[in-house]
Structures are given as C-alpha cells and as structure tokens.
C-alpha cells in the first residue's frame, strides 16, 4: 500500500483482521517519509509484516519512476530503522525451498539443513542459510505470485517505462468482481501465449500484464465484497495473509501481506 495513503489503506484492509498497532502506524508514517527522501524513491509502498516467533519483520518497498523496474526492499524490526535487503537471485530461491517452518524474527538466525550429496560418497553437507536470505526470497516469491493491481492503474508508455495512470478512476462495480480485472504486478509471463484473437482485444497501453484469470491452481483467489458491498477484497489462498483491497469507482487500491511467510502447499486439498 502506498505510504501516502497509509491510514486509509490500513483501515480498508482491516477486514482480514491483522493490521498494525497504533504505535507502529505512527512510526511508519514518519519513517517512510524519511526513507523516501533518503533513498530518493518515487513511491514507497508498505509491503506488510512477516510474523516471526520472537519478533516481526516490517517490510517496505521503494519504487522508481518505472513501476515495473526491480524494486528495492527494506526491512525493519521496529518500523523506525530500515535496512536494505539484497536483491533476490535464483540460487537463493532454490536454497530456500529446503527451509520450512516459521520465521524466527532474528535476521541473523541460521537455518541448517543437510543436503544429500548423491554424487559423492562424502558426508552430507550441512548448509546454513541465514534468515535474511530467506526473507529476501520469500518476499520475492510472494511478489511474483500474488502482488496485484487493478486494470488501468498503470499504463505503459510507448517508450517502455510503466507509469501510474493519473486518470485511473477505479474499476466499475460490474468489473470489480471479475478476476480478469486484476493484473499481476510483475513482468508479464503469459502474454505471449495468448492467441491472436485475444491479443486483438487487448489495449496495449493498459493490458500489458498477466491477468489473474489463468492462475494455477484455479480458485486460489477469493473475491469478496465487504463493508456492505463498497469494498472489493481479494485474498490469496496460496499465501494466506495476503490481502488486496480496492474501492470501486475510486482510486484507492493496495495490498498488504501479514502472515507467517509460508506458502500454503495444502491448497489443492482444501478447495
């Protein structure tokens, strides 16, 4: 959620039950302003909170002019002091696949797991993974999987960069309940696979991202209207704790993740 409209966004996303306490909110309002100034970001998003056993991580992301450029992620334990996280890489992601369980809350905590070496007959290698690295890859995974924006909120200029659409007036109510009106907020993956017929209907400046319709597994999104039908809330079932909200016919939209940072691998059984 945008740091500019933090209070309103928190109120709207409160339907999922987990939010921020007043002292954290107050701290965020001030510290995010400073982060924006110090790091010279165009927009600062409050990404969410990852619950750990001992402490929680508060995550923020900074965006530059081009909305689709790789984002910088920062984390903090007390909402005042922010530290930049290294960018996520592929090999880190593979390492993370082995680590299970809750986050500890201590960035220097090391997870140990043994990697079985099939090739050599040597002893199994014990790989130590730091929690910070795990944090980076989890945030990256969540972003790639579930970060979404409504259709029309961003538009692509002919030169390439993607900008915030200042004439976005919100989704109409009829569109707000459809999964196709929401796009993944990441580089599109499936656009090339669309048939020519489908592509003909697309508006190249608005429809340049993947829509949620073809997400696998089907049904991994729950769309609801809350507050007496004046608010659309999308919750991801694959990453429980992720909430996206949007008030139709207004510009308010945003997402927040408050959860344990674990993927729900039981989803196929649960649907």
């Amino acid at each position, binding site marked *: 959620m945008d740091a500019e409209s933090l209070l309103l966004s928190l109120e709207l996303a409160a339907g999922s039950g987990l939010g921020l306490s007043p002292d954290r909110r107050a701290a965020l309002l001030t510290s995010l302003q400073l982060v924006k100034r110090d790091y010279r970001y165009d927009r600062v998003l409050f990404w969410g909170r990852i619950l750990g056993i001992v402490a929680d991580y508060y995550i923020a992301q900074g965006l530059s002019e081009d909305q689709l450029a790789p984002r910088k992620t920062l984390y903090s334990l007390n909402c005042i002091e922010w530290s930049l996280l290294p960018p996520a890489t592929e090999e880190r992601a593979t390492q993370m696949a082995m680590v299970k*369980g809750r986050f500890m809350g201590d960035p220097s905590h090391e997870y140990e797991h043994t990697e079985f070496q099939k090739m050599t007959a040597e002893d199994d290698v014990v790989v130590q993974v730091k929690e910070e690295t795990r944090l980076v890859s989890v945030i990256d995974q969540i972003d790639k999987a579930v970060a979404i924006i409504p259709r029309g909120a961003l538009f692509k200029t002919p030169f390439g960069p993607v900008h915030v659409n200042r004439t976005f007036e919100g989704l109409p109510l*009829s569109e707000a309940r459809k999964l196709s009106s929401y796009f993944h907020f990441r580089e599109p993956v499936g656009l090339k696979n669309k048939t020519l017929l489908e592509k003909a209907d697309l508006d190249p400046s608005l429809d340049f991202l993947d829509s949620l319709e073809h997400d696998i597994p089907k049904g991994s999104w729950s769309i609801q209207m809350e507050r007496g039908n004046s608010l659309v809330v999308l919750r991801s079932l694959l990453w429980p704790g992720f909430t996206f909200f949007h008030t139709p016919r207004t510009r308010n939209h945003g997402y927040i993740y408050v959860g344990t940072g674990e993927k729900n691998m039981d989803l196929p059984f649960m649907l």
Partner: protein
Amino acid sequence: MEDSTTLKQEKENQQLAEAVQPWEEETAASPQDLGPESFGPWEVEWAPDPGPRPRSSRARTPEPVGPVAEQAASSSPPSPQKPLSTLARQDLGALRQLDRITNGTLDAGTPLSDPPGQSTDARESAPPSQSGQDTSALTQQPDPSSKPSKPQELRPGSAQEEAWSSHQNRDQPGPKASEAAPSTLEIAVQNAKVYLLRASSKTGLNLYDHLSNMLTKILDERPENAIDFIETISQDVKMAHFSKKLDTLQNENEMLPTYEMAERQKALFLQGHLEGADQELEDEIAESSLPNVVESAFYFEQAGVGLGTDETYRIFLALKQLTDTHPVQRCRFWGKILGLEMNYIVAEVEFREGEDEEVEEEDATEAEERDNGESEVDKDEEDELPKSFYKPPQAIPKEESRTGANKYVYFVCNEPGRPWVKLPSVSPAQIVTARNIKKFFTGRLDAPIISYPPFPGNESNYLRAQIARISAGTHVSPLGFYQFGEEEGEEEEEVESGRDSFEENPDFEGIQVLDLVESLSNWVHHVQHILPQGRCTWFNPIAKNEEEEEEDEEKEEPDYIEQEVGPPLLTPISEDLEIQNIPAWTTRLSSSLIPQYGTAVLQSNLWPGAYAFCTGKKFENFYIGWGHKYSVDNYTPPVPPPVYQEYPSGPEIIEMDDPSVEEEQAFKAAQEAAELAPEDNEETGEGEDDADN
C-alpha cells in the same frame, strides 16, 4: 452559440494571458502560410482547444482579445478578425499592446464592455503589422490553426459584414489592406476545417469535436504534466462519449447490493431507538449481557489485531440485536472466520438457565442406526447369505449441551446486519473427522463438505467442529482468574472425568503485565481439552456394547480400550506441546516504546490467528483467520483402510485361485492323455490281439 463561443474565448483569453508573453518572443520567426495566421482570432473563439498547443495558440491570444470584445459587442463571428490577427502577429510591439490589453481584459473580469475600447486601440495598432507573414507561432501547428479558423470562416459571411461595419471606425486601414489576403487563407482554412470535421466512418466522431472536448477537459482540470498522459486523456474523452449513452438504469443495478446492505446496516443503528421511559434504559443497562466489544477491540488494536473501528462497532450492534432477540445469559464476540465467498462472524453465547432451545436431533440418528442393524439381520435370515460380522463402531454419543464441547452455543452471521444463525451442537464423530481434513470454508452454511474421510455433515457442522477445536486449544486466561468451584458432593466422579466447571475468582488481583509476557505459566486454559475420542469427558463404549451384545451369539472379546486422558482444566499453557522446537505460544508486549501502559499479547502458533490479551485484570480471547491448524509438514489425507475381512472365510465363499500355467499345462496334458488312452486302448487292444495272434 455565439455567446458560448464568446464565453469560451473569454476563458481562453484569461487562461492564455500568461501564455501571451512567451509567445511574444516567438513571433519573430519567419512567416509561413498566410493560412495559419489568419486563424488566430478564430482559435480564440474556440477557446479550450489551443491550450495545449503551445505557441500557435498563444500566438493567437492577443488577437482574440480584440476580437472577443468585438464579438461580444457585435456578436459576430471573428471573420473580420482574421486580417487583424495576421496584422498583429508581425508587430511585436502591437503584440505587447495586445498583451496588455489581454491583461486588461483579464483584470476587468467582465467580458466585453471594456475591451472594446481597448481592443479598438489594439486593433488600430495591430493592423499596421498586418502582413500575413509572421506565422512564427503558427508555424508549428498549421493544422490546429486551421481548425480554429475553420469554424469561424464557415460562419455566414453576413456576420462578417456586420463585424466589419461595426469596426469600420477603427480598422479602416488594416482590414481593407488585408481583405484581399484572407481569401486564400480563408480557403485554406476552410479546407482544413472541413477535413477535421469529417466524421469517422467507424465511430461517427470527428477529430474537430474530439480535440475541442479534450482540450476543454484539460483546461478544466489542469492536471500537472498533461503532456505525459495526453493519450490517456484522449482515450478517456472518447470513452466518456460512449458512456453517456448508457441507460441510467444499468448503473442502478450495479449499486443495488450496496444500497441493500446499507439499508440493513441502517436498521442496526435504528434498533436502539426504544420509545420508553428511562426505566427501560436502566433495565437494559442492568441486565445487559452484552460484552464490551469496543473496549476489547481497543486492546486488541494495540496488538495489531482488529477489524477496523467502524466494522467493530457494527458487529457490536449486531451482537446487541442478538441479545435482544434471544434469551442470552452471556455473550461474547468469538471472532471472525474467513471464507472463500463470504466470511463468518461468530458469537459465543450462553443461554439462560432453562431456556435451552436445542432440538433433540440425537435420537433421530441413533434410531436410524438401530434400524439399519435390524434390517441387516432380517436379510441374513431370508437369503442365507454369509453373515457379515462387521459391526460399525459404536457411535459415540455427543455430549450434552452445556457440557464439554457443547458448553456454549454459537451463532454466526455473514455480515453485521444479516440475521444470526445458530450452529448445531457438535458430535464427537465430527470432531474426529475434522481433525483429519483440511478444507476452506465457502461462506455458505449449507455447502457440502466433500472430503476423505467423509465428513458427517455440511459446512455448518464443520464450522462448529473447528470452532470447538479452536476454543479448546486456544482459550486462555491469566492464572488465578478462574478457580474451581467449591467442593461438591459428587467429587469422586468428577475427579475421574476431570473437573469441568469453574467460576470466576472474586479475589483475583491481577498479574503484572510483564510477568504475563515473560512466563507462559501465568496463563491457563479454561476450556476443556478435547480427547482423541472427540469428547471432553471419556465415554467408554464397551460398557454399552456388553449390554447390547447379550443377544448376539457371537461375542467378541471386549477390547480393553484405555481411558483417554487429557490435561485437566486450568493447566498452564507452558505445558502445551511444542511444534518442532517452536513453542506453542508467543508472547509480546504491545508497545515496546511505552512499556508501562502496554498490554500482554499472546499469539498462538498452533492455531494461527488466535490471540489473547491481558492488561492485568482484564483479558479476552479472539480468533481471526481461516480456521485451520498450523502444521509444518504438508497435509496428507489419510490412507483408506485395508479391505476388511467381512465374512468368515470358508469353503463356500473362498475364491479359488486361478491355476498357474504349469498346473494348466499339466491338466491339459492329463486330459489329452485321457483322450488318447481310450484310443490307445483300442490300438493296444488291436495290438494285443495282433500280438496274441
């Protein structure tokens, strides 16, 4: 039309006043077509459009001033102004004068009365500069310039005549001089304008109108950096063009559910309007069984848990509605369970003594089972089929209401404002099965639960079972808040099954918040643990079995089932099992910055979403989540049991094994041998005869 145009010009003038100055510098460029230049005044009239087109439009502003005034006065089209504009262009000085005039016009605020005088002057100075050559400003956008001119040129020539006549005094030298020049300009302008007004074959729109609409919009809204998203604006204008044609009724339909919900919630707010004396109010306050939801919500908010203030208030009102309509002794806001299509808001209710509204459903199910058993017996006698010695396991009866897992009654609703629905009591079988499945709630209470092992019931039963499990697992209170009741006569029995009643401790003095945070042993469970059997108190199925099986011939050896024991009531939560080295509970102080006023917050790691807070004396439990238990490993559905030996194996029903290949071949050989044997016998017989002979 004229008025509007003049007004437009007014606006344009005022708006473009600032633009005039920069433009002035630009006018020194080389001349181009006469055409574009003459467009100046027209463009003015067409106020909003020239806005974004920087220079050309600005260039024209000075002219418009004069013409505007004139037009207002004469309400004639700008045709006469055309020459004036061209004249004006060339002379920077003239322009500056015009500029001043424009400013003067702006200052005046009122349209047209003042300018005429001024514009007259301007025009007088302007004409001399008429050469139709200075098109610097216009150079850049010949097309747009043609547009403005077009409309005006198309005006009937009569208007032109009028204008001329009115201006005769002032413009004698200039206009006459330029009269000849505009004709080619006019034609070019007309051509350009006709082109722009040509309607698109696909949509019926034309470029001229579209551009004018777009520029109107931009000048009205004045967005920053409009050039960056001019294409989007253009699209929006186009879309707005279409949306106007939509039936207003269609929009009504969209909003209908919103209004409906709002009406319902309005009813919530109005229910408190009881007409009555203060007496009623006092009664209400005295007997209120309503919990202070808002206060608890405040404390939970300190922990970062909550539904938002207005939503909480609406839930509060809905609870009030519940207590008003049902005879409720005590009521508590249990929490919220999220679902796929809708969510559940759950209220935990304890009815008043004797006001139990439970329907006896249990008898019905038991009767069914007995019927089944009997029918099977009948069948056996008739058909003489092998008698199955499968006996379904004894159904464990569910606990009486107000005891064990059914201690409280739960009401749910999807949204505050909707009616409350009572959930049925939970049976042990449901709890046992709920432990083995993991399903999302859809939000509809009558939705079937399709799972393996098959869940006996629909979503309302599953919901009730999960609520029971969550309550049993996560409802905690500070140590000492509850204590066991006074000694009663039948203590021995109670000791066996575990104490199941408690009451508030009137002497509870509160525990320091810091103590609560540091040590888990300061918190205790105050809900009975549910045994693996699915009940809180052990039910021995064998005792009943013996009674029922006296009739049967076959008597099974009574299996000795160990009594299941669970942790007794009021055990501290430090005794809870850990989940893979993670403690089952996490404690936090709500605020690390101001610890003296903080509250102790307890989060469950076993049931993510279960929270409890305590501020020394006050405490409350709450659940918000999907309603599932946490497990590090993935859920694996239980394996179906092996095929059951239902029937006694005897010669009648045992399946013959298919013969193996060797056996078959041996058999075949034997058969062939048997066939050959008689032939052989015959042969040998013959042989023998021969031999004998």
